[in-house]
């Protein structure tokens, strides 16, 4: 019986804290994205337009590891039974990607242009009882200064 109470309290705390955290994170992402929106970034291999003279070239990166909360994990295991969109994980990877790109941009605020943006996603909790609860996103690119 106590096990059941424990599980329910885990789900409830997971839900409350998870929701608070997600809302805060989205607010912070929105604020910081507005701040860095003027930076030129492309996923093509060549810089946009002519860049002369180039003074510095740097490899820049930004990474983040984000975990999903307990409530969403339980809901997901139910979803796996019925099929369909898993919203909880969609927002998880969306937040992770946007955060990684923001960290990359914030690491080179003076760059003229950021070219060849590449994103890589991996799960680092794999193998641990087969529960994939967290996702790692790495964004890397070349920053060009003029």
């Amino acid at each position, binding site marked *: 019986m106590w096990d059941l109470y424990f599980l329910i309290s885990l789900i409830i705390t997971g839900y409350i*804290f998870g929701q608070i955290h997600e809302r805060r994170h989205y607010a912070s992402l929105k604020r910081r994205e507005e701040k860095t929106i003027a930076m030129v970034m492309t996923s093509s291999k060549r810089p946009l337009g002519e*860049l002369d003279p180039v003074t510095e070239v740097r490899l820049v990166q930004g990474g983040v590891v984000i975990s999903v909360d307990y409530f969403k994990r339980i809901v997901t295991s139910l979803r796996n039974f019925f099929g369909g969109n898993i919203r909880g994980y969609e927002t998880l990877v969306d937040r992770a990607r946007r955060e990684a790109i923001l960290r990359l941009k914030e690491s080179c605020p003076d760059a003229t242009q950021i070219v060849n943006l590449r994103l890589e996603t991996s799960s680092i909790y794999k193998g641990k009882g087969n529960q994939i609860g967290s996702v790692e996103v790495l964004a890397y690119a070349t920053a060009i200064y003029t």
Partner: protein
Amino acid sequence: MFLTNIEEVPGKKITACYGVVSGSTVRAKHVGRDIMAGLKNIFGGELEGYTELLTEAREQAILRMQNQAEQLGANAIVNVRFSTSSVTAGASEIYIYGTAVTVE
């Protein structure tokens, strides 16, 4: 040393090529971080410990790749690629590779 993930170093000319150089590292997380991560798995949110760990691991792998390129006499590495894989439970491997070149 110049590092880029495009095929050239903008503003410079490639004069010699030395082939592929790479650096890798396998890192495990320690127990303290694992416990914290376990808690975060209930509440959700960023696992700062892991972010830090992977950042350190990546820096080390880049350093190893740079050392290899320096030994060959290169002064730049172009087309750098990152890859992460989990080899066993609780450890991840970072592998970084690129092409060592001389630029002028």
